[in-house]
């Protein structure tokens, strides 16, 4: 479209410019986050005030409770996490950080976004069909999910499966594009070992996704056939095996966690050195740790199934592998802390969110060790302890790291600076309220509250969890309200924020800070850079300035 005269439609809507596609991903993903957040608000209100009408929604029936948790989970992972961290940051940063003028296949890139949008349309249609939306939980276990009679939901679940499959195709197209772009369009001098970690993380995430999603894609078609054509792949009544689906699901589901985690850590590893003015500690060590974690992520899936009737002889190896996979992440944590050590740390908004991500994710990781061992898992399985544990991993990943990245690259994206005071307020409100949601839920889990029970007061032993549920719900409302600060800051600064004078307001070293802010539409760089050194040359003794950009000739 470089030849067509720019107008509203080909600039903002049907653009094939990677930066515009990234912004489309970003804004669509944030809208979906608002939707997922609203669902969370509704079912948390139900848990804190069972049976009462929820403002802006009404009374939550048990059926709609199931739908709300299903949609909250699947939206936050498939329609928020992946589009923001891969679609948004991947599209925006890959060409800029490697000095390319666009992706290798710009049209495929646009198609990937439009497929994502189509999947959202299908998802929204599934809300309004008869019998209501999907309600099988995001994990979607058969036999309940495989026969419409069991859940009473017909088209809603079918459409939900189709929507998820479309979203997978969208990410697949993106993944092929990212891998090809990084392999073939690195600017002169940018060898693989000089790539910023963000790019490595996008690559490994794309590979993990492409290698793990295939069996589940096949499995979801089989599920659809079970539901519509009457086959029994997963229905024991017809000789099928419901456990098979769990294997297919978690063979994808566990690498999927790392598909989200790695780009999030990519953001962290870009932000930390810039705002601490220190080189990233142990570039190669980190890289190989993540490669190892990625490889291991394919052989730990059955730790999600310890109590679903698997062979006890298999429990031990899977528990051991699960504990081993925490080693690379421990390496990562130490390297990140070592990066901060004796740094010149400035607590800007992106840095605060990054530090928040590291601290909260640490809690998520440590609480995971307890359930990674099968003995602990048998007690905690499917309780609120698990809910709290994986929110301590997923919220830092998809929300904290994502926000850190949005603030960090804001001046590059829009050519204007966000409001720092509002940003800091946004961070502190979010971080504090986040902990007030999930620390009480650890306790609720220990008291034995199963995650699918919509009304704790129905069970005598759960009545005492009510104060904790109330704290969590109030904190969630604070968390959601705090996001209005971000929304205001995001849109207000886009038009009224202070103009960024320099191309490189953070005095960073990677290539995206060499091109104008915002970068040139269709082409990015005014002066095509060449690369002369690694990505994290901060505080080098031989220079007066404390940073040595990749593009500067020595």
């Amino acid at each position, binding site marked *: 479209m470089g030849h067509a005269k720019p107008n509203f439609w080909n600039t903002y809507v049907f653009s094939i410019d990677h930066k515009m596609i990234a912004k489309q991903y970003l804004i669509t993903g944030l809208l979906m986050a608002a939707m997922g957040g609203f669902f969370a608000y509704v079912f948390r209100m139900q848990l804190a005030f069972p049976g009462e009408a929820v403002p802006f929604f009404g009374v939550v029936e048990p059926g709609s409770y199931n739908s709300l948790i299903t949609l909250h989970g699947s939206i936050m992972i498939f329609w928020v996490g992946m589009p923001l961290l891969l679609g948004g940051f991947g599209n925006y940063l890959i060409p800029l950080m490697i000095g390319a003028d666009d992706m290798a296949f710009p049209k495929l890139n646009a198609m990937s976004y439009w497929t994502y949008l189509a999947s959202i349309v299908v998802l929204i249609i599934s809300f309004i069909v008869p019998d209501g939306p999907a309600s099988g939980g995001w994990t979607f276990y058969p036999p309940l999910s495989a026969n419409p009679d069991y859940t009473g939901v017909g088209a809603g679940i079918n459409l939900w499966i189709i929507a998820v499959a479309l979203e997978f195709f969208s990410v697949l197209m993106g993944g*092929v594009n990212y891998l090809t772009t990084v392999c073939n369009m690195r600017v002169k001098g940018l060898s693989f070992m000089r790539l910023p970690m963000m790019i490595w993380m996008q690559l490994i995430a794309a590979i993990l996704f492409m290698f793990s999603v295939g*069996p589940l894609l096949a499995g979801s078609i089989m599920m659809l056939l079970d539901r519509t054509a009457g086959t029994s792949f997963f229905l024991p009544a017809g000789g099928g*095996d419901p456990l*098979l689906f769990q294997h297919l699901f978690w063979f994808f589901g566990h690498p999927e966690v790392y598909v989200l985690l790695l780009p999030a850590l990519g953001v962290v590893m870009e932000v930390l050195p810039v705002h601490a003015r220190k080189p990233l500690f142990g570039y190669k060590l980190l890289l190989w740790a993540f490669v190892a974690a990625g490889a291991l992520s394919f052989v730990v899936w059955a730790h999600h199934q310890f109590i679903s009737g698997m062979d006890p002889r298999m429990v031990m190896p899977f528990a051991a592998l699960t504990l081993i996979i925490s080693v690379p992440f421990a390496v990562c944590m130490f390297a990140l802390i070592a990066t901060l050590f004796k740094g010149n740390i400035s607590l800007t908004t992106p840095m605060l969110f990054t530090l928040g991500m590291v601290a909260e994710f640490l809690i998520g990781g440590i609480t995971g060790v307890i359930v990674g061992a099968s003995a602990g898992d048998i007690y905690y399985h499917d309780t609120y302890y698990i809910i709290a544990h994986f929110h301590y991993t997923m919220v830092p990943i998809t929300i904290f790291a994502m926000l850190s990245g949005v603030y960090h690259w804001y001046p590059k994206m829009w050519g204007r600076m966000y409001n720092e005071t509002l940003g800091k307020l946004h961070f502190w409100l979010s971080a504090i309220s986040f902990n007030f949601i999930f620390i009480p839920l650890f306790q609720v889990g220990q008291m034995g509250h199963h995650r699918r029970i919509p009304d704790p007061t129905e069970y005598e032993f759960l009545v005492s969890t009510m104060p904790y549920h109330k704290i969590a719900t109030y904190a969630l409302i604070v968390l959601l309200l705090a996001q209005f600060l971000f929304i205001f800051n995001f849109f207000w600064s886009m038009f009224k924020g202070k103009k960024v004078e320099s191309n490189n307001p953070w005095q960073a070293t990677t290539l995206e800070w060499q091109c104008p802010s915002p970068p040139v539409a269709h082409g990015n760089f005014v002066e095509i850079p060449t690369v002369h050194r690694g990505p994290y040359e901060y505080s080098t003794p031989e220079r007066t300035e404390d940073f040595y950009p990749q593009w500067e000739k020595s």
Partner: protein
Amino acid sequence: MSAPINPEDIYEKAEVPSGRLAMWWFLSSEVCVFGGLLAVFVMLRLKNPIWEESAAKTLTVIGTINTLLLLTSSLFIVLAHHYAEKAMKDIKFKEHASYYLGLAIFLGFCFLGFKSFEYYNELSHGVTPLTNLFWSFYFFITGLHGFHVLIGIFINLWVWKDVKQGVNLQRVEIAGLYWHFVDVVWIFVFPLFYVA
């Protein structure tokens, strides 16, 4: 937009051209689709020895013919690629490339024809995907493979149109990669469903 850029001047040397590389990455994820599916089938087959009775009813003769058809079509794709490379230097070879590509497409259609006859034969004997789990897998896996063959034929037809005019000749190789992949999948499907 700035002056046109010559990629070789600004980028590190690309080991593999982008189109071919993207196809390899795509195929690597396709391998996982069929790999996972066939692994599941093998495990269930070992668990259910009784499936042997159903497996004996698949039409081995037609399966063998189809194997030969696909293998031969792969040979033609190789020849088409060979002449397409030559045609990049001397355009008169585009006729050869187009001839062999056409043959490969024709054999693809023949494969689908035999496959349809097979389905028709099974359905008319009352064997459907709902008969038992073996037949569910049989229809699903061969159906998914047949769908890939169909897509391969469309890709080849689309490339064929260009080859006839002597443009985009490098696409023969990329389409060929996909076609070989579809062929390789059949090499696994055939023994698992027709021979074993």
